[in-house]
């Protein structure tokens, strides 16, 4: 009999009180139907609202950052927890309810079958529903990721990613904000992890549209990535 795999669902959250309970319950219901052992971990990144209480009410384990440290840092904490607790896979997903639980399950299956270390759920392989401005911003950041780090993916900024045990043990990054998405791919390439993509559907509600990153934030991300790349020329 094959051993059931353990999956850690990591959800970094900052002030997501209105939706986090629904997100946790939704993914929990889908995972319950699968044959996987799972734990849902919400990284409450120093929220000012009731994110922690709502996530706990939904059935998640909550790890609270004392200080707001950014999405990169919150994701790193979640993956560190998964690594310390010997999970076979960790899946990160956004807390704003834009990811479908069926895509999480599909990602785990694909990662298992293809022995992928870092599987990215790409919203741009099928960009239906995403506004043109967001498509442009995401494609632009993916192009910059390619230009700076030589990694060719369609959606470098996707929040839905599947990490293998190998990735959990070895993958580390330095940036703490949203620029970690591109840096993480670069670090994965440096340690020769197998990176792949699969198509996912992103659901844009009024809430997620209001919470999402705007293209001006992309300018900040690009600045930070260029700085990081230049610094490491001298490292």
């Amino acid at each position, binding site marked *: 009999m094959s051993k059931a795999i353990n999956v850690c669902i990591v959800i970094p959250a900052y002030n997501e009180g209105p939706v986090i309970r629904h997100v946790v319950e939704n993914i929990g219901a889908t995972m319950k139907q699968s044959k996987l052992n799972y734990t849902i971990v919400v990284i409450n990144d120093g929220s000012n609202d009731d994110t922690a209480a709502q996530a706990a009410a939904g059935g998640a384990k909550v790890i609270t*950052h004392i200080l707001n440290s950014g999405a990169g*840092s919150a994701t790193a904490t979640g993956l560190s927890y998964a690594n310390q607790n010997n999970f076979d896979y960790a899946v990160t997903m956004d807390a704003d309810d834009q990811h479908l639980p069926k895509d999480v399950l599909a990602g785990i299956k694909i990662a298992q079958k293809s022995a992928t270390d870092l599987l990215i759920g790409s919203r741009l392989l099928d960009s239906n529903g995403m506004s043109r401005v967001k498509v442009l911003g995401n494609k632009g950041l993916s192009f910059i990721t390619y230009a700076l780090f030589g990694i060719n993916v369609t959606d470098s900024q996707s929040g839905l990613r599947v990490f293998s045990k190998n990735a959990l043990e070895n993958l580390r990054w330095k940036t703490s904000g949203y620029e970690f998405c591109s840096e993480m791919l670069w670090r994965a390439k440096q340690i020769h992890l197998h990176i792949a993509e699969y198509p996912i559907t992103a659901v844009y509600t009024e809430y997620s549209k209001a919470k999402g990153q705007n293209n001006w934030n992309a300018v900040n991300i690009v600045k930070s990535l260029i700085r990081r790349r230049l610094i490491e020329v001298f490292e």
Partner: protein
Amino acid sequence: MRYILLVALNMPIIILGLFNIITQYKLKRVNKDRLTHQISLWSIILIILIGSFPAYNLLMGKAVFDSSELSLFDIFQTTAIIVIIYIINRQRQKIEQNEKTIRDLHQEVSIKLSETHGQN
């Protein structure tokens, strides 16, 4: 003579830079990629310094590159720039190390606190 002085003044800094990175590598504080990168950086600086005199001789008399020889001020200024590169490099490594320590500490404290408080 001035070019010899330029190389002589800067050689100890370059050796210090190389010695520093080799020590860090031997103590397993940096990986092989970073070692290679740093050795390349300091070697390029050394090659530029050693090659500056032959390059000057080669280019002298050609319209665009025609210039006067190095003054003593130029030598000290170049040395100061290389010292600054060395100091910046060291300080940045220390800052990155401290950032990593704080980040790891924050992560560990958060995970341990969540276990202690049993937020489940």
